[in-house]
């Protein structure tokens, strides 16, 4: 394990600060950013763990980005890690809104700002699509029927049937428990997301 020194904490702070400063377009955008920063670049967590964090963050009250940073920070370095990560996550909106609230009418009516944000929204779409293709493709290649069914099922439930996400998560927990009861420990379907490049 890595050392929990000042260097580590400043890295954690900078990474979460950067993540938070770029979560345009809603909480889920944190997933591709977290994947790039913490899974690919720093290698501090595995992709599977990141998905677990997302599920926990989604089913807890409060903002997704804050929740994800709490669990990420705690996982890496206990309570002090969680505090540093949350601090890094909260600071960008706190600074930005403090400045904007002083004279926001010029900001929200500015045409150039509007155009830049329209372009960024298209970029956000690409980032989300990329992460879905990457991770969804991996699930499909594993050819594990239940996993594919759960992925497609929860997509349909949320996107088309507009089912509450907490309800979807609880259903999957139930399915997980039922299938685990039927299998002995050594028969458990092995997920090997993290072994792939």
């Amino acid at each position: 394990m890595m050392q929990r020194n000042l260097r580590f904490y400043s890295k954690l702070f900078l990474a979460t600060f950067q993540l938070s400063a770029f979560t345009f377009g809603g909480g889920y955008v944190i997933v591709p950013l977290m994947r790039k920063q913490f899974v690919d670049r720093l290698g501090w967590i595995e992709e599977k763990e990141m998905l677990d964090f997302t599920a926990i963050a989604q089913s807890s009250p409060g903002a997704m980005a804050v929740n994800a940073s709490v669990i990420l920070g705690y996982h890496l370095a206990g309570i002090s890690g969680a505090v540093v990560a949350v601090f890094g996550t909260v600071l960008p909106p706190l600074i930005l809104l403090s400045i904007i609230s002083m004279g926001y009418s010029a900001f929200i009516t500015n045409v150039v700002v509007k155009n830049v944000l329209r372009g960024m929204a298209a970029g956000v779409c690409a980032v989300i699509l990329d992460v879905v293709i990457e991770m969804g493709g991996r699930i499909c290649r594993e050819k594990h029927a239940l996993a594919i069914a759960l992925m497609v099922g929860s997509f349909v439930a949320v996107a088309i049937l507009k089912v509450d996400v907490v309800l979807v998560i609880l259903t999957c927990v139930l399915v997980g428990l039922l299938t685990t009861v039927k299998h002995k420990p050594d028969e458990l379907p092995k997920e090997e997301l993290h072994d792939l490049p």
Partner: protein
Amino acid sequence: MIFLNLFWAFFQIGLFSIGGGYAALPLIQNQVVQIHGWLNMGEFADVITISQMTPGPIAINAATFVGIRIAGILGAIIATFGCILPSFLIVLLFAYLYKKYKDLHYVQGVLCNLQPAVIGMIAAAGISIIAHALWSGELSDFSLTALDWVAIGIMSVCIFLLRRFKLNPIFVMLGAGVAGGLIYSIF
């Protein structure tokens, strides 16, 4: 007293907004507009607009905006603190349980079924983000004329860069912003 009110109002918002994002809107409106009258409806609509234009969770944005208007920087900090405290404590408990029990057989079974579901839910969120960004008209009106072809072009280039060169998403989003600023401003 005003600090205590700010703290308590945003503590409740943080505690009861499950599902994230815009699910928190009615709660924020109730506390900030109806109960305390800190903002009028017009100002509240402005907060939503600003939140759509800036990064970060809407509840934190609202906390900062209201806090600073009612009681300055300290007010903003206290409101934000109140907003994140409940989720901080609850998620900390979950994080502790996760770390302690994640290798248990049953927990493993549940988690490995949850992971594909999370991907499905990210895809679902992605669809609504894409619909919002690429259709300039009403979402129910899927006509070709309502399509924003510039946005589609920018998105396609970004997808190519992400898939082919594995660029950092942050740079891709920044590049898309610059492209949007140039193209939309010229045409």
